[in-house]
C-alpha cells in the first residue's frame, strides 16, 4: 500500500444525499457522527457541506421521481475516486415504498453502489461497519490510481 493509500484510509470525508428519505436514516447518520459515543472523527471522517469536497457519498431514501435528476447531478460533482454507500432499505430495494408510482429507484439502477447497509433505520453500529467497509474500498481505489 502506497503513501497516498495510507493517507486516504485515514481521511475519508463523507457527504449525505437525502433522496426522498423519511429522515429516519438521516437521524441515525447524525447520531453516528455527531455524538461523542460513536465519534467517527477518530477515523478521520468529516462531514462536508459541498459534494466537491467529498470522498464517500451516503445516500438515504428511495430515490423519488422528483429527486432523481438532482441526485445524478450532485453525484457527478463528487470528484474521483469516490465510493457510494446506500444507507437503509429504501435505496437498496425501495423498502415500504416499493412499486409506488412516485419512486424511480432502486439506487443501483443509476449509480454504481459499493456498500449496502440494510435496516429501517440501520443501527449506528451497522452504519459504522458499512463505513469501515467503504473506507477499505476507497483506499484501494486511491492506490489503484498510483
Amino acid at each position, binding site marked *: 500500500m502506497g503513501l497516498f493509500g495510507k*493517507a*486516504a484510509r*485515514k481521511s475519508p470525508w463523507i457527504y449525505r444525499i437525502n433522496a426522498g428519505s423519511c429522515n429516519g436514516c438521516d437521524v441515525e447518520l447524525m447520531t453516528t457522527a455527531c455524538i461523542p459515543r460513536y465519534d467517527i472523527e*477518530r477515523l*478521520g471522517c468529516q462531514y462536508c457541506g459541498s459534494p466537491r469536497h467529498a470522498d464517500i457519498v451516503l445516500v438515504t431514501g428511495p430515490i423519488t421521481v422528483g429527486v432523481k435528476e438532482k441526485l445524478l447531478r450532485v453525484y457527478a460533482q463528487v470528484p474521483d*475516486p469516490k465510493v457510494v454507500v446506500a444507507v437503509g432499505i429504501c435505496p437498496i430495494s425501495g423498502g415500504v415504498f416499493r412499486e409506488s408510482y412516485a419512486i424511480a429507484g432502486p439506487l443501483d439502477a443509476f449509480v454504481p453502489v459499493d456498500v449496502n447497509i440494510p435496516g429501517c433505520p440501520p443501527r449506528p453500529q451497522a452504519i459504522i461497519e458499512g463505513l469501515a467497509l467503504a473506507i477499505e474500498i476507497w483506499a484501494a481505489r486511491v492506490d489503484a490510481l498510483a
Partner: protein
Amino acid sequence: MSDIILRVLLAALVFPGGLFVIVLGLGLKGLERRIVARLQRRIGPPLLQPFYDLAKLMRKDGFVPELAQPGVFLLAPLIGVASMSVAMAMLPIAGVYTPAPVFGDLIVLFYLISLPALALMLAGSASSSPFGAIGFSREMALMLAYEAPILLVIAAVALHVGRGTGAVASFDLAGIVDYQRVHGPFLLEWRLVPALLAYLAFMPANLGIPPFDIPEAETELAEGPLLEYSGASLGLFKLGAAIKTLVIAALGIVLFCPNGPTGALGLLLFVVKCIVVIAGLALFRVTMGRMRIDQAVLFYLKWPVLLGGLALAAVTLRI
C-alpha cells in the same frame, strides 16, 4: 549580493517560512482538533490528521466550474500559502532567528497578513457560486471592521518602542523584540494592556473562528468561498489557513511576549507559546455560537477600536 538572496530564499522556503511553517502549522492544527474533541468529550482524530487530509486532497480530482474564471480561481489558493510563508520569514523568534533587514518591517507584514483574506475574496467571486459571492461580501465587510483595531495596536506598540529608543516610532520587528528583551515583555506593560485585548479580539475574525466565522459559516453558506474548490486547490486553501493561524499567533507573541532563551530551548519555548494561543482559540471554537455580520461589524467598530485607541492615547500622552 548573492549571499543575501540565498539567505532570503532559505528563510522563506526552509526556516522559518516554507517547510518549517508547513510542518508546525499542520501539527498545531491537528493539536487544535484534538483539543476541541476532548473538550466535547470525544476521542478526536489522530494528531497527524491534517497531514493525512492534505496528502489525500493532493490525489483527488480537481474541478473548475464552467462559469468560473479559471486563472483567478486556481491562483487564489497559492496567494494565501505564499504570502503566509513570507510573513513567517519576517517574524523574528527571540534568540533563535532574526530576519534579514531586506524583508521589511511591521507595515509590510500588516499588508501581507491581509492578503489571505483578499485571496479568499478572489476565490469567492471567481467561483461563480452564489454562496461564494455571499461569503465574499461578508469577508469584505468583516475585513473593513477588523483592520482598524489592528492598525491602532501596531501604531501603539511602534510608538511605545519608538519613545523608549529615542525615535518617533519604530516599526522594525527585530527592534521591537530587542526592546522587550531589555525592558520586559509588553504583556506586563499596563499602557499596552488594551492593545493586547484588542489583538485578542482581532484574532478570531482574521482566522475565521467562532463567533466570527461568518464568511465561511459551514451551516448556512457551506464554507462559502471554498464551496466550489476540490482536490489540490482545496488542499492548498486548508494549508494556507493552518499556516495563517500560526503566523497570527506568532505575530501576537512577537508584539507582546517574545522573551526566551537562545538556541533550541528558545525554539521550544516559542512552540509552547504557540500551543497556548492555539488552545485558547480551541476554547473559543467549542464554546461560541456565530454572530450575524452586522453584529460583528458593530462589535469591531466599538470595542476593539476603543481599546486600541485607549492604548494609543496612553502611549502618546505618556501618562
